[in-house]
């Protein structure tokens, strides 16, 4: 545990560069009217933030994005862990699924959008599916790696105690893979958030921070766009921090 004084100092140091950027931004906006259009003054962004907060637009769209992301994160994680684990424990499964997985993984996420729009429309399903796919990739990879790199010494103990394959998987491999799976989840979290906003921006339907940005952009309300950008950044940052804490709490034995 760090001392409180050091923690506060650390926090302030971490905020120094972002605050400097805000200062530079404000400076830029005061240069001329044209500048003020491109770099909306900070107080205007602030006012817009309050307005969006009060009329409920921010909450509505934020919650829509959050729900879309969480749905995709949960489904994609479960699916990714299942497929990654299968590839990790079964050589045949790895031979069958592996090449396809690595091939499909090379296609940028946004590359699937036209096809998905064509197959499933531009509604909630397509948006959720994008997030599921974004989460699926890193989860498969990290689960697979984690299980493949399970401590050989632990597996020998399982062998000595005559564990079945299933027992070995549940009691040893999966737990040895947990740190790697968590790393995958941290990656997935970032991808999920990006995919959520990205799919909203591209499909442009329904509620969501991405949709709100799109509408604001066409209405030349740059302050709204900036509110959305900051909201997306701050949320992602907080989620990352939260998962990091959960990992430390859950896998405390790894860090002793």
């Amino acid at each position, binding site marked *: 545990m760090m001392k409180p004084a050091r923690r506060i100092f650390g926090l302030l140091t971490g905020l120094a560069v972002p605050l400097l950027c805000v200062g530079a931004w404000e400076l830029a906006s005061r240069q001329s009217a044209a500048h003020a259009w491109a770099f909306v003054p900070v107080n205007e962004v602030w006012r817009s933030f309050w307005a969006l907060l009060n009329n409920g637009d921010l909450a509505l769209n934020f919650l829509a994005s959050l729900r879309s992301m969480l749905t995709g994160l949960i489904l994609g994680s479960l699916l990714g862990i299942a497929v990654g684990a299968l590839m990790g424990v079964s050589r045949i499964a790895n031979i069958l699924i592996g090449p396809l997985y690595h091939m499909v993984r090379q296609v940028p996420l946004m590359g699937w959008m036209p096809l998905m729009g064509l197959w499933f429309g531009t509604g909630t399903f397509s948006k959720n599916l994008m997030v599921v796919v974004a989460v699926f990739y890193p989860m498969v990879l990290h689960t697979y790696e984690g299980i493949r790199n399970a401590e050989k*010494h*632990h597996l*020998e*103990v399982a*062998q*000595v*105690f*005559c*564990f*079945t394959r299933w*027992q070995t998987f549940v*009691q*040893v491999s999966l*737990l040895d893979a*947990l740190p790697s799976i968590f790393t995958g989840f941290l990656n997935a979290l970032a991808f999920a958030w990006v995919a959520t906003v990205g799919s909203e921006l591209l499909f442009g339907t329904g509620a969501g921070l991405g949709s709100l940005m799109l509408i604001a952009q066409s209405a030349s309300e740059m302050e709204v766009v900036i509110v959305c950008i900051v909201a997306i950044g701050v949320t992602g940052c907080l989620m990352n921090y939260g998962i990091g804490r959960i990992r430390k709490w859950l896998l405390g*034995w*790894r860090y*002793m």
Partner: protein
Amino acid sequence: MAARLALYVNEEETVEAAGGTLSIRGLCKSYALEDRQVSVLKDIQLDIKPGHFVCIVGPSGCGKSTLLRLIVGLDSDYAGEILLDGARITAPSLDRGIVFQDHRLFPWMRLDENIALALLNHDYPKAEKERRVAEYIRLVNLTGFEKARPHQLSGGMAQRAAIARALVNEPRILLLDEPLGALDALTRVYLQKELQRIWMERRVTMIMVTHDVEEAVYLGDEIIVMDAHPGRIKRSIKIPLPHPRDRASSPLQDIREEILNELTATSPEPDHLEEAVRI
């Protein structure tokens, strides 16, 4: 040697034990290294009676750890025969336990959970499993540490937990692969005494691989001296002294000196590159 030892020979003590006779006949083991076969164990003959404590000493690369892995069943690719009470060993079984040099406890589990896990494939009722876990935790003097996680235990405590985990199945044979090799000198001496006490209480057949000749003569009824390249049994020395033993007794010191002289007559380091490859 024989004449000198005759002074200490007692009647061969008869031990009551539920099986645990190990017979090894013409055991050979080799590995493919690049395009050649490297012989690791050659024509091993060994008979171990139930309830005996046998120590295996020898230079690096003499295949003593490989021998234990074959006996426990982690490796079934060998020529010759390894028989436990007449049955050929081909795979691990709950009637053989092993303690490794590292404790190999699962870091995500508490001590009692780690030990209970060894009983996973036994049909005992839950209460019986709990009773056994508690009994073996008591046997290794770890009562009070049931809820500790492995990282909270000292090296010696973790190794005692590993011994409890290996014994909780009540195996006929306990194999010990340099179990005290990574511990500091004081802990090692303490655990040697503990091991002797546990062995005398349980009378389970124990086979221990060690680098420490003093440890071997202190604990063993029989010392198997191995030679390397290929790994083979050079000599077997019976130590028919009763337990518990006095570490400083002159007969033990004499035997220890003799074995040490024998092991260090030539350089214990491998003198060819391919022999240095740890298999």
